[in-house]
């Protein structure tokens, strides 16, 4: 919604990301807060924010695929694995610099996504989900069994060095935070650009009316594959960052359940909105953080012997419970996601005192 009294006099203003001075100032303030946050925040908070940012990247990709192009993929975490291993192996084996390995990881993820996107030519919805499900099993299997001498298999896994850019090693939580946030902001900008140009419109055209899109000159198959490619490039980059952050890779880190969580984040954030991806990732990660914090407390309360008596079991059960619960509540009460609620909130602020 445009502010009253804001008039576009150039066509570039209609699609501008920051339209008014207030937008620009808000963004600069936001950047400053991010810059100075590590000075006051503890490691735990920084680590949570880094995790949110890395997750946001992969959810952004999925948002373009699911929210814009209307396709579905249950292979997102597998494509993250491809990116993570590609970057890790390129640096340790081939001696690539981090700045080259990261785009290569994106490309590797993208190519994997392209292959598993091919069934989208014939399949839709549920059946496409089943076809992409295969990626969640095939890719980890390949990592474990094809060359375990290189990938390290399940045990001992692959040790990944911290990123090094021009001699600077990102080996602390703070430096990783800056690196990841910068890359995330760039990825958000790129995603926003894709959705506001011809490619984004072609995606929405396919989502809303694929027959009309074909008749009006959009090559559906090409754009479906492009959506899969872009989606998994994001997954690849996100996976690579995750690997460099955790510094240890294991195929068991990239499970089908994670792919489902990412889809859940897309829905919770709000289908068809770039900011929704960030909101969704933040919401679920913060929820997860609280569950982790609450689990040990619950352990003390629950009767002896229940849930095996271990906090980890309570955490796993409670995680699935809260995640499922929040999904159901969102679908019932806020099906258009956090992004929509946020827009409504902003609109009511602008209209104050004429809004209820």
């Amino acid at each position, binding site marked *: 919604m445009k502010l009253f009294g804001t008039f576009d006099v150039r066509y570039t203003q209609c*699609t501008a990301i920051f339209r008014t001075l207030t937008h620009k100032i808000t963004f600069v303030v936001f950047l400053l807060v991010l810059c100075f946050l590590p000075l006051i925040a503890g490691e735990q908070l920084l680590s949570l924010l880094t995790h949110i940012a890395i997750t946001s990247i992969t959810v952004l990709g999925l948002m373009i695929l699911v929210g814009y192009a209307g396709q579905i993929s249950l292979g997102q975490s597998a494509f993250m694995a491809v990116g993570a291993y590609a970057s890790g192996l390129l640096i340790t084996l081939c001696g690539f610099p981090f700045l080259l390995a990261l785009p290569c990881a994106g490309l590797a993820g993208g190519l994997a996504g392209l292959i598993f996107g091919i069934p989208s030519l014939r399949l839709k919805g549920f059946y496409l989900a089943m076809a992409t499900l295969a990626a969640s099993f095939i890719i980890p299997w390949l990592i474990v069994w094809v060359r375990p001498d290189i990938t390290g298999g399940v045990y001992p896994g692959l040790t990944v060095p911290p990123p090094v850019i021009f001699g600077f090693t990102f080996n602390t939580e703070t430096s990783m935070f800056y690196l990841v946030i910068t890359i995330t902001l760039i990825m958000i900008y790129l995603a926003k650009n*894709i959705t506001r140009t*011809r490619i984004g419109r072609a995606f929405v*055209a396919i989502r809303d009316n694929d027959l009309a899109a074909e008749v*009006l000159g959009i090559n559906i198959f090409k754009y479906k594959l492009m959506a899969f490619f872009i989606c998994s490039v994001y997954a690849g980059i996100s996976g690579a960052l995750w690997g460099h952050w955790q510094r240890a890779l294991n195929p068991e880190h990239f499970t089908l359940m994670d792919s489902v969580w990412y889809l859940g984040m897309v829905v919770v954030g709000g289908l068809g909105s770039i900011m929704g991806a960030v909101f969704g990732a933040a919401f679920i990660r913060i929820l997860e953080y609280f569950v982790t914090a609450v689990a040990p407390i619950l352990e003390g309360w629950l009767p002896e012997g229940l849930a095996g008596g271990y906090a980890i079991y309570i955490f796993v059960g409670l995680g699935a419970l809260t995640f499922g619960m929040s999904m159901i509540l969102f679908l019932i009460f806020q099906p258009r996601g956090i992004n929509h609620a946020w827009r409504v909130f902003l609109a009511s602020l602008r209209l104050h005192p004429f809004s209820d």
Partner: protein
Amino acid sequence: MPILKVDRVTLSFGGVTVLSNVSFDVEEKSICSIIGPNGAGKTSIVNSINGFYRPENGRIIFSGNDIIRKPSHKIAALGIGRTFQQIELYTGLTSVENMLAGRHMLFNSGMISCALFYGKARRQEVEHRRAVEKIIDLLEIEPIRDEVVGNLSYGLRKRVELGRALAMEPSLLILDEPMAGMNAEEKEDMVRFILDIYDLKGTSILLIEHDMGVVMDISHKVVVLDFGVKIADGAPEEVSVNPAVIEAYLGRKKA
């Protein structure tokens, strides 16, 4: 020289013949109408031209290209734009975005350029937005340019759909019942737009319509179909007195 030549096209679905040996031409810079009772095969002809249906026999020649085996998006790229009987807009996009999406194939910016929003992508966004504004002007839909089309009324959606087809800058514009379900005033507007488009852009128009008044008024040529067979074609005044046409519409007089 006809811009579109439909030559002995036969189409059937599982043994039911929908079109049999239908031939007709659309002359360049003319308005040609297809009429016929319900189920005559009017929309099937259009869908065959668009590449939705694959006729088993015959040829469809558009500006010298046989288009019968081409995929739909390539046929569109040759310069055939269309609207649909049931409105088929991209409901999640605004009017302007729908029209820009219609111009999709006139853009040639690639993925990298779009992602960076730099150079060609940025330039073309502005350039095509300017072209779309001209169409908005022509169709008088300025107030709804930024409305999401899912929220628009039926008549306006029909207009945006016409705008989207025009945005493709087609040399042949196919309109499938553009006036269905409209009141007299909306019909007048629509006819005015069609004539404006024809006068200003010289676009050849293939029109499917049930309103005989409109058809007889604006077409240069009328093709009549009945049960998948062409029973007459020619100038409106010839067709309207043709006994076969009268029989198809009104039935045979009892002897």
